[in-house]
């Protein structure tokens, strides 16, 4: 220990010193004579130990006290942070909810635009989503200054609401809304007496229990299309800030989507108009052709009739020269009649006026009749005709008149375009399950056609070459008519050919074999 530092003996100033100072002073004193007495020494040692213990306890207690304070502060900080986090979480959740609602509303508006056929319908489809997304109870669609459809989710007094709506309809607010450049919000919770005169709709709406009116103008390219008015029926549901976000988005979306509907509507109208015009023109043409054919045929029949009489008279009087002239006139008239008949049939088919009459037909009899008529033509060209028919013990269900018409055309053509050759008519009945088809192939060894000619052979007024008309006669409508007839009967007519080798026309018609006892025509 250090040398004594006490100028005055500690025992002489006990009142000035606390226990710690006293102990320290005596310890620093080192060899204090007062402590020579062993009992005093023992007491001092006890005091020294006690003060040290007390000192440690005091420091420890203070230290722990400070720590407790710090921990309490930390706990408060944590609680504050938790509260802040909760607040942030709540705000985020609200935002998320708002965004979800907004997305839903936009998708509903888009869906309405897809489903609606016109602007009015679309606005109406949007009323319910608009009300649900904004929490406003009533939605009304307005076109021009007139009230359209409305959607009411909640209304305390429907009668009063109806009156209020009527008042709104005639209000200047609504007229201005159509041309407004953004949604308009009118707070109806507090309506002052001053409002009564000029804008009584506010008073009526307020009295009907409405707390606010939200007007959404729908304007496309500067043109007002419609307006939506949403009415708030529950003051607690007015969260203007949240609604504003939704309404702004809905407002732009409505305009964008409705313009889609309007252009679609206009496009559809244009298409429909064009179709109607085309149909009417076509019908007019068919009617004209049908009428004209009648008008042409009647005098022509008279000419032919009188021509026949004239030929007989001239023959009787032995005037052969004029007779040949008149017979030539008659030939030209018959040709013209065939042409007109074909045109008449074609226009009947086009006008949908040609009907099918299916009846039991004896195939062999039909062919016999056709070949009998065509026999002179076949022989004129020095041709041989071979006809193969299936052995049928039962009649077929067919339109016999049209079958004959087709056969006359095809076999007649084969005879016309073949010289000193062979014409084969091959007929078979093709069975496929319950269905049956009659297939007739007419094969000639005539002049044939090139690929180019073959491609156009069924077009109206086309013969393989224009000069063939002069050489072979014919109207140029036979094949066209035959194919149309085959199609009318539910069948097909096809052709294959090679230039200089010959042509084959195949007609296939659906049919049905009847029981043998059914009588042929």
């Amino acid at each position, binding site marked *: 220990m250090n040398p004594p530092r006490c100028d005055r003996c500690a025992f002489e100033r006990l009142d000035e010193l606390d226990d*710690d*100072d006293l102990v*320290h002073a005596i310890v620093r004193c080192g060899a204090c004579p007062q402590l020579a007495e062993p009992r005093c020494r023992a007491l001092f040692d006890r005091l020294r130990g006690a003060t040290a213990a007390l*000192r440690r306890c005091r*420091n420890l207690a203070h*230290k722990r006290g*400070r720590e407790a304070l710090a921990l309490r502060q930390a706990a408060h900080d944590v609680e504050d942070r938790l509260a802040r986090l909760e607040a942030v979480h709540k705000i985020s959740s609200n935002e998320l909810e708002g965004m979800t609602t907004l997305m839903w509303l936009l998708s509903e508006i888009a869906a309405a635009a897809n489903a609606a056929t016109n602007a009015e319908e679309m606005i109406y489809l949007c009323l319910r989503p608009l009300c649900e997304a904004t929490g406003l109870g009533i939605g009304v669609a307005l076109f021009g200054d007139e009230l359209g459809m409305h959607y009411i989710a909640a209304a305390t007094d429907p009668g009063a609401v109806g009156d209020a709506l009527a008042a709104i309809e005639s209000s200047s607010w609504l007229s201005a809304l159509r041309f407004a450049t953004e949604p308009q919000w009118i707070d109806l919770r507090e309506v002052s007496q001053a409002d009564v005169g000029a804008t009584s709709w506010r008073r009526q709406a307020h009295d009907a229990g409405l707390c606010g009116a939200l007007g959404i103008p729908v304007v496309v390219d500067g043109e007002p299309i419609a307006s939506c008015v949403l009415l708030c029926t529950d003051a607690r549901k007015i969260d203007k800030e949240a609604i504003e976000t939704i309404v702004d988005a809905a407002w732009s979306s409505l305009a964008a989507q409705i313009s889609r509907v309007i252009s679609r509507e206009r496009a559809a109208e244009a298409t429909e108009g064009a179709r109607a015009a085309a149909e009417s023109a076509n019908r007019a043409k068919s009617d004209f052709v049908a009428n004209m054919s009648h008008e042409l045929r009647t005098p022509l029949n008279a000419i032919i009739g009188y021509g026949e009489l004239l030929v007989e008279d001239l023959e009787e009087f032995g005037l052969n020269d004029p007779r040949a002239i008149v017979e030539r006139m008659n030939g030209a008239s018959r040709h013209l009649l065939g042409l007109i008949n074909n045109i008449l049939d074609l226009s009947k088919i086009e006008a949908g006026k040609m009907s099918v009459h299916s009846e039991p037909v004896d195939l062999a009899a039909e062919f016999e009749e056709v070949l009998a008529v065509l026999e002179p033509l076949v022989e004129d060209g020095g041709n041989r005709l071979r006809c193969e028919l299936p052995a049928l013990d039962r009649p077929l269900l067919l339109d016999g008149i049209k079958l004959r018409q087709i056969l006359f055309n095809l076999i007649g053509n084969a005879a016309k375009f073949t010289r000193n050759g062979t014409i084969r008519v091959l007929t078979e009945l093709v069975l496929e399950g319950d269905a049956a088809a009659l297939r007739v192939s007419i094969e000639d060894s005539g002049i044939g056609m090139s690929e180019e000619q073959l491609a156009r052979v069924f077009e109206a007024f086309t013969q393989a070459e224009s000069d063939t008309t002069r050489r072979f006669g014919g109207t140029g409508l036979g094949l066209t008519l035959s194919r149309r007839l085959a199609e009318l009967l539910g069948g097909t007519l096809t052709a294959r050919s090679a230039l200089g080798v010959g042509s084959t026309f195949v007609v296939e018609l659906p049919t049905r074999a009847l029981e043998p006892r059914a009588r042929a025509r």
Partner: protein
Amino acid sequence: MLQAASVSCSGDDSRAVGKDLGSELLDSLGRDPDVVLLFAATRYASADLLDGLAARLSPRTRVVGCTSCAEINSEEALSDSATAMGLCLDGVDVAVAHARDDADDSAAIGRRLGEDLRDFDPSLVILFVDGTRLNSTPLLAGMQAVLGRDRPIVGGVAADDLRFVRTEEFVDGEALSGAAVALALRGPLRVESVVASGWQAMGRNRVITRAADSKTITELDGEPALEVYRTYLGGFGRDIDTAGLEFPIGVLARPGEEVLARGDAFIRAVQGPAADGRGVRVSGDIEEGSTVRLMRTSREALIDSARAGIADAVAAMPAPAFALVFDCAGRKVVLGPRYKDELAAALSALPPGLPTVGFFTYGELAPRDGETIHHDETFTAVLVGVDGA
């Protein structure tokens, strides 16, 4: 023989706390210490504290220390205390130097300290630097210019409980401000330093292409540093006002140094956006041309790094005489009430009962590759042993 003891006292009467510290040191050591290292919270009136301490101790006992942000003794880290270590340094010579400068010229102060200690030729310098008025980087450079770059210097930057208003530096009976205080020891000492950050680099290496001044990074790889930093913080849902301590910048290499893959970056805390709105301000000096990375960590990693750092040092020096710990106030902020866990983990790795003292600083002074530099947000410690003891 070298003898050490550390004590912590706490109370409302600063003078009484000073006296208690003295009494406790005398009781623990059984004699007057040659040197007392004192670290005290700013709630104590320094003059009274020092006066009380002096009332108990011999006038020849040298006292050095500073105000702190929290204190460390052999058992724990604690706040609001006055904590002291008494050292009886038989066979070790002691010198104390301090310096201040009316212009707060840190480099000049460093040179003067160096000159004061040059003839003494210390084996170890324990240095405390004012934390609000001085800059330890030029101060260290000034000292090292005189004493040599590889002179073992450890210590910390004085703190003031995160108020950043006024720190005080203690030398014998005086509490100074704006000063640097050095305790120099000379003798057969062995020193084992610990520098443990626990920060993990993220992203890629970037070069500071422009620095407006020594504490403002203006551009990283030519991009505005604030933008780069915000982009990273955004990924963690954090903003610069609150996250600078938790997402500091690690300096991998100073200009001219080789960039090594090992993770011994020294750390700079980010304090906020620079006045120009493009750069970020950092807590310690940086240099243009340095290679840096952004850092992040977890509380567990911070705690583990401190324990592992101590364990490595103890493996190198199994029987030290005492230990000094200088831990960063920023880590205390990041760890919150768990700052005690970090010290508990670190102290548990020391030999049981090893006298230890230290404090939470505004900057840790510890060697990096043999040369002492200023660190931020880093746990540093030094084990001191005596040859032949």
